[in-house]
């Protein structure tokens, strides 16, 4: 089955996120208020041919471990959505 995989890779909490800070700053300069904890990461989407959603999630995890995320600095989250 074809599934859509959404991977969200964000800086590990505790690590400084200057890009997030810059955006927080810019948003408040634009007049948005009540904002906090802005974190910026990567969103990766792909289509995957997998036996099941669970299998797709496992494959996606392997992709993150091997390539997509850097364990020193990043955490990831995976969502799978059948087509």
């Amino acid at each position, binding site marked *: 089955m074809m599934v859509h995989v959404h991977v969200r890779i964000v800086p590990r909490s505790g*690590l*400084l996120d*200057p*890009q997030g800070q*810059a955006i927080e700053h810019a948003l408040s300069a634009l007049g948005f208020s009540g904002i906090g904890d802005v974190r910026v990461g990567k969103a990766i989407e792909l289509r995957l041919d997998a036996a099941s959603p669970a299998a797709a999630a496992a494959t996606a995890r392997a992709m993150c471990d091997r*390539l*997509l995320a*850097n364990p*020193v*600095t990043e955490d990831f989250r995976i969502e799978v959505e059948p087509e």
Partner: protein
Amino acid sequence: MTCVAVIRFPGSNCEAETLAAVVRAGGDALLVDYRDTHLHHADAVILPGGFAYGDYLRSGAIARFAPVMQAVKALADAGGAVVGICNGFQVLCEARLLPGALQRNAQQRFVSRPVDVRIERNDTVCTADYDVGEVIRIPVAHGEGRYVADPATLTALEAEHRVLLRYVPVAGSDLPHNPNGSLHDIAGICNAAGTVVGFMPHPERLADRVLGSDAGQRFFSSLVRSARVEVAA
């Protein structure tokens, strides 16, 4: 003669000046393709600057899987000299040959300018011809050069004196001495033995009097000499 392999990834772009610096230092320089599986009997390896695979995901993330990296690892494990410059440093971190990671510069912009760095040790494969504490001015040019590591790793790096190069302020400069927000002002690190080395600045770009300074040349003379000693031993 000491033979230094300079690895070319598809998007490397500093290989020519790196080769030239090795040759100027009296070494034998060899360009090795990333698809090669061995290093052609080189005594030392340099991973040069550039954008190995466009670096669209993270600098060095894809390059670490290149076929040649097996041979680089093997050389590093055997105590051979492995030097990563800029993108090469990023590749070494991604390949876990050095700890930590290089992230997007704190100011979110590419930075290209001279920096003042202090040589923290001269018992490594590429700093023997400098004095400890010597401050040299060489260029950086990178978008992802902010060195980060977890607190335990940082503590260990400092305790084991594995910080090789550090950004330092010099009198009269009106720029921040740390160009990218690196933790502990780290510009370069090495493994415990001082044989695997990575740093962000580009000594090969300022290694010829004609360009106004040859402050970076001794990285290459050191490398050529120390790798030769190793071979003799």
